[in-house]
């Protein structure tokens, strides 16, 4: 693990990151294409901001799950919180990522031309976005909700373009549960009470299904 120093261009934003730069991610979505960012993901603890958070501007759009931080003076984006995994990524077993995507362009002492590139086709995710109009209550394909059912088991509910998909969560396991059907048009904030109706015989007095994500 190497510690790199990083900054925007004008110097208002400075940071340090511990990383093993074995690759960079290049995405072709509408924002990455404009920024040309070379991203490398690190855990939360591996990034240390040396200047005040207030000196950064936060930009969010679309699903509002990603957080782009940039310098308002020179416009450079030093790092971002990636968006939540897409539905396909969830199906492939990819967990939500809780760390940072650091823009390797901002790091000192890195030869950008020699880093292996991992191409990410973020633009394809955007193609699916219009389907969001069909989702109830502002739900967006790829939205992930989790519920605790009376402490007995946990369910993960994932928004597909036109349906809610249900998964049983175990310790380190996740399996599709087709026996639980949630109406496609049910808004996200009504799923907990819907599950209560479904599973009420399992619950004790005063217990209710809790949303945990």
């Amino acid at each position, binding site marked *: 693990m190497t510690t790199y120093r990083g900054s*925007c*261009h*004008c110097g208002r934003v400075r940071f340090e990151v511990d990383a093993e730069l074995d690759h960079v991610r290049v995405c072709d979505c*509408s*924002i990455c*294409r*404009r*920024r*040309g*960012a*070379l991203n490398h993901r690190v855990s939360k603890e591996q990034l240390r901001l040396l200047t005040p958070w207030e000196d950064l*501007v936060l*930009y969010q*759009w679309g699903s509002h799950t990603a957080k*782009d931080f*940039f*310098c*308002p*003076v*020179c*416009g*450079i*984006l030093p790092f971002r919180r990636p968006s939540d995994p897409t539905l396909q990524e969830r199906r492939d077993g990819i967990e939500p990522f809780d760390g940072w995507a650091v*823009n390797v*362009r*901002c790091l000192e002492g890195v030869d*950008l031309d020699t880093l292996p590139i991992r191409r990410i086709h973020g633009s394809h995710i955007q193609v699916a976005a219009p389907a969001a109009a069909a989702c109830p209550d502002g739900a967006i394909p790829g939205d992930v909700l989790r519920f605790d059912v009376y402490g007995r088991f946990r369910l993960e509910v994932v928004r597909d373009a036109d349906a809610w998909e249900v998964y049983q969560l175990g310790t380190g396991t996740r399996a599709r549960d087709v026996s639980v059907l949630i109406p496609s048009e049910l808004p996200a904030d009504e799923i907990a009470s819907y599950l209560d109706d479904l599973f009420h015989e399992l619950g004790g007095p005063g217990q209710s299904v809790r949303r945990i994500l």
Partner: protein
Amino acid sequence: MRISGRCHCGNLKLVLEWPGELSSIGVRACGCDFCTKHAASWTSHRDARLTVHVAQPGLLAKYRFGTGTADFLVCARCGVVVAAASLIDDRMYAVVNVNTFEDIDVTALERAVTHFDGEGTGERLDRRKRNWIPDVRILHDQA
């Protein structure tokens, strides 16, 4: 041909009237620190015409560095740099960032890496007068 471009949030929009076909657009990836960090890739033509539409003037950041002879037009809402403008002898010249172009696969455009590090200020301004877009308007749509 007419090319549209914009920052990500749409606060800054470009209309570039280009005197030729797509294949005639050459892209220059400058090797300076600013352009590297922005991954900015520039193009210009001495017979082109550029209009920059600004929806919210308060969210247009003009960033200067180095010789201080060009303003880099950055959207203060989304951080994208759309163009650089330089006022020389009372005329505004500009280059545009092709990464902001819409409906064009900019990865297919011909690219060259350029370095202007050793250039003097006089040489730099002369080069801009020769190569940059000489017909530039920045319009505040709100007004």
